[in-house]
């Protein structure tokens, strides 16, 4: 019994992180009906950005230079294509962006020297990393998604697939294929009561994911931009007819999605190490949203918890029977069963089409 409760508790904590990942996919799907297959790569990039700031993870110049050039090209292209700003201004702003990224990764912010306390350093590094991740989301959306507005959602989905490959290659080019140790050393809040033991890191992951989830809900349902996001999610053309700039709203959605993926990525990396293959965890968002419903925010929460529980139960009760690795298969198995019974997921909107 103790085992079961312990397993369920751990499953729910990890499930909350998956729920946050699922939410990031759901908000993009609701707004553009496209599935973001590059979620794992966003997770990796966000986590590496946090790593660079929090651990002062500097890199040699021959690795940082390509990234600086890439950032320069990204910024210059976005400003040139999207805003039609003069080439000199675009070049200067692009160079400034590239230089900042180069300085950040080559010289480092040296946060561990100035802020030895891990908690304070975390509180400083987190907003910086999230801002950087949001910026990456904005840049990617402007260059790859915005030009496809009004086209078929399938084309956006395919673009996210290609984007995933491109971003993964970039990460491998810059950070290599090695593993980076990633322990945040946050204050110990391990819960120990009787025979129960819940470790500090999963609790932190659950709490931060839940807070992020709640903040997004508040943003969507209590703010002017949130209302516009919900309108654009329902129909881009109608929203534009009422003066809502659907392109700007899409940009905000990608930024929010990128920020939340980074929160989830940091929490997941804190369980172990960070590497160029960490993005594989992002694929967990797929069973989460397919179980919960592609367009349901509440469904993402339920789906995340189901996947977390499923993984934990399979790890505790089935893997010891000799089925090593079943923990990774179980979520997809549950997903298939749910889809057989409810093809639109547990809370997905059933589409009724006249024939």
């Amino acid at each position: 019994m103790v085992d079961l409760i312990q397993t369920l508790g751990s499953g729910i904590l990890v499930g909350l992180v998956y729920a946050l990942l699922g939410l990031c996919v759901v908000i993009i799907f609701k707004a553009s009906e496209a599935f973001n297959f590059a979620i794992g790569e966003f997770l990796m990039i966000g986590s590496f950005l946090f790593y660079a700031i929090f651990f002062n993870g500097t890199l040699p110049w021959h690795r940082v230079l390509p990234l600086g050039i890439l950032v320069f090209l990204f910024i210059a292209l976005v400003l040139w294509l999207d805003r039609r700003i003069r080439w000199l201004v675009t070049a200067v702003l692009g160079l400034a962006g590239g230089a900042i990224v180069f300085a950040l990764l080559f010289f480092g912010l040296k946060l561990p020297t100035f802020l030895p306390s891990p908690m304070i350093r975390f509180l400083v590094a987190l907003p910086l990393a999230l801002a950087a991740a949001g910026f990456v989301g904005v840049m990617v959306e402007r260059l790859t998604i915005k030009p496809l507005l009004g086209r078929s959602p399938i084309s956006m989905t395919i673009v996210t697939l290609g984007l995933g490959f491109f971003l993964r290659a970039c990460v491998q080019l810059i950070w290599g294929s090695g593993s980076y140790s990633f322990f945040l050393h946050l204050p110990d809040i391990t819960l120990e009561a009787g025979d129960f033991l819940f470790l500090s890191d999963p609790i932190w992951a659950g709490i931060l994911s839940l807070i992020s989830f709640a903040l997004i809900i508040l943003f969507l349902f209590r703010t002017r931009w949130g209302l516009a996001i919900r309108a654009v999610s329902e129909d881009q053309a109608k929203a534009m007819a009422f003066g809502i700039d659907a392109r700007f709203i899409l940009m905000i959605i990608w930024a929010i999605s990128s920020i939340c993926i980074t929160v989830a990525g940091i929490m997941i990396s804190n369980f172990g190490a960070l590497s160029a293959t960490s993005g594989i965890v992002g694929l967990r968002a797929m069973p989460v949203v397919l179980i919960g419903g592609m367009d349901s925010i509440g469904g993402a929460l339920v789906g995340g918890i189901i996947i977390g529980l499923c993984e934990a139960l399979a790890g505790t009760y089935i893997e010891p029977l000799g089925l090593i690795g079943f923990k990774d298969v179980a979520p997809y198995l549950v997903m298939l069963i749910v889809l057989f019974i409810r093809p639109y997921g547990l809370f997905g909107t059933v589409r009724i089409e006249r024939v």
Partner: protein
Amino acid sequence: MLSIENLRVVYHEVISVLNGISLKVIDGEVLVIIGANGAGKTTLLRSISGMIKMFDGDILDGDIKMDGQSIKGLDSTDIMQRYRITYVMEDRPIFQYLTIEENLRVAAYSRWDSRVKEDMEEIYGYFPVLRTLRQKKAGYTSGGEQQMLAIGMSLMTKPRMLLLDEPSLGLAPLITEELFRIIGKLNQAGITIILVEQNAVAALGIATRGYVVENGRVVLEGTAQALLENKDVREFYLGSGEKERKSYKDAKRYKRRKRWL
């Protein structure tokens, strides 16, 4: 004044819908555009409002001018914010999953003034039924209520010109009558209205002038009264021509005339 000069529009780079249409809209009038399905009425409104790109359409030639300034190619948000032209799309352009109040609030998204609440009250004055339903999801209201909401939403944008695309589509005759009465009232309040309608009798009843559009061109124009009395318009759009059936030759002659005008 809005003027459209020789506008040519295609969809998907090949389907030509507007073939050099020209017309003028005078401030303060209700202008009705009638025509058969596929004549280009909706495309015309999409072009004026800047929404044409959203539907994969392109303006190939011609110009759209508001008070002498070209608005061709501007973004829909720019056109709405700078020129206060609001397009009410056909088939009830409301957000079904938002409540009626949220729909009205989101329609005021482009505004930054503090009069949103007062304007909402004014709209509840025009459409009292919306006040009683304000916490209800818009998708669960009737067709007439949804159309009233759509017009209420367009008023929240504080328009100078309203482009109404088939507002009576699928509505019962009594509700249509009420709707046209309100459209007339809005015009009296100073809003210029371009009304695209299949229900030509009701539309011409409140209109100042009208255009008949066929194959992407204007084939007839005149005051609402003149159009109501025109034999061809009565025959083909009002469904109240002479009692005796026209011969095939007469109908063909009219169609040929439509093509060549």
